[in-house]
C-alpha cells in the first residue's frame, strides 16, 4: 500500500477536511476501553454498570476520544503529519449503534521555529450532537520530498 501525506504548500486556509466516519459497535466500545486500560468506573465495559449510572448503555471512554480524533487528523494529514497540540471540549456521549462523523477545516497556516504548521478546527459528532470539538496544531512536511531527501518532521 502506498502512503501519502499532505504537504504544507498544498494546503489552503479555509480548506475543508473530507468527512470521516467511524461506526460504533458495543464490541468496539469495549475493545477501546480495554486498549485504553480504562476499566474504572466500569461504564465503558459493562452495560449493567452503565445503566446503574443512568446511561442507556456502555459509552466511549475519553482516552479513546483522543485516539479517534488523532486517527482522523493523521487520516487527513497522512503519517508524516505530526500532531503537536490538540484540545477539545466534551459534549454528547457515544453509545453502541452511533456513527461518529469527523469534520473540520484548516483555520490557519503558520510557520513557527522553522516548522510548517496548520491549525485545524474540528468536530467529532454523533446524531445527538458534537461529542468533541476543538482545535489541533499539526506539523506537515513543507513540500514534496525530492529524490533522496530526508523528511525532517
Amino acid at each position, binding site marked *: *500500500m502506498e*502512503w501519502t501525506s499532505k504537504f504544507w504548500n498544498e494546503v489552503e486556509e479555509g480548506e475543508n477536511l473530507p468527512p470521516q466516519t*467511524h461506526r460504533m459497535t458495543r464490541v*468496539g466500545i469495549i*475493545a*477501546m476501553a*480495554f*486498549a*485504553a*486500560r*480504562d*476499566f*474504572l468506573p466500569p461504564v465503558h465495559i459493562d452495560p449493567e454498570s452503565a445503566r446503574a449510572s443512568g446511561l442507556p448503555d456502555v459509552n466511549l471512554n*475519553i*482516552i*479513546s*476520544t*483522543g*485516539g*479517534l*480524533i*488523532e*486517527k482522523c487528523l*493523521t*487520516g487527513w494529514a497522512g*503519517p*508524516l503529519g*505530526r*500532531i*503537536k*497540540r*490538540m*484540545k*477539545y*471540549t*466534551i459534549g454528547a456521549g457515544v453509545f453502541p449503534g452511533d456513527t461518529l462523523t469527523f469534520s473540520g477545516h484548516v483555520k490557519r497556516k503558520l510557520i513557527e521555529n522553522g516548522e510548517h504548521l496548520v491549525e485545524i478546527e474540528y468536530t467529532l459528532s454523533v446524531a445527538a450532537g458534537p461529542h468533541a470539538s*476543538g482545535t489541533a496544531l499539526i506539523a506537515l512536511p513543507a513540500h514534496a520530498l525530492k529524490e533522496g531527501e530526508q*523528511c*525532517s*518532521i
Partner: protein
Amino acid sequence: MTADLYAALKAMEGEESPPYTANDPVCRAMIRHWCEAHEDPNPLYMNEAYAKSGPYGGIIAPPTMIQAYCTPRLWPPSDISPTPIFRAVEKCASAGYTATVGISYEYEFLEPLYPGDTITFQLKLERVSAEKKTRLGTGYFITSLYTYRNQHGKIVCRQWMTVYQYRP
C-alpha cells in the same frame, strides 16, 4: 461552608504528586491492540518497513495512547497514594458536590513514544475556578495537569484535563 471549601481547594493549587511509573513499558502488543480497537491504519504504528524508513526510524505508539499506560490497574491494588486531584474531589464530595463531568482535554506532544520506553507521570492540581452555576448544578471547574516523562527524563507529553465537580 462553601467559602471554606473554595479556600481549601484554592490552597491545593500547585500541589503535585510524586512521580509514578507506568504499569507496562511501551510495547508493540498494546500498540497493536489499540490500533485494532480504534481501527487506526497509520503505518508508523504497525508497519515495520514503513516506520523504519520514516522520520522516527522505527515503530512509534499513537501519541494519545500514553494515558493507557498510566490508568489504575485492576489487580494487584495500585500503590499510588491519593493524588491532589483525588483529594480535591473527595473534599468536594464530602461537602455535597458529588457529581463529576469531564469538560475539556488538552494535549501537548513533545517527544515520540517508542517501544521499550518506560513512562513516569506526575499529576498536578493546576487550577480551581470560583464557584460557578451551570444547568447541571453548582460547582467548581478543576483543571489537572499530567506530565509524562520517558526514561531519559524528557517530557513526552503534557495533558490538561478539566472536570466540573458539582452539586446536582
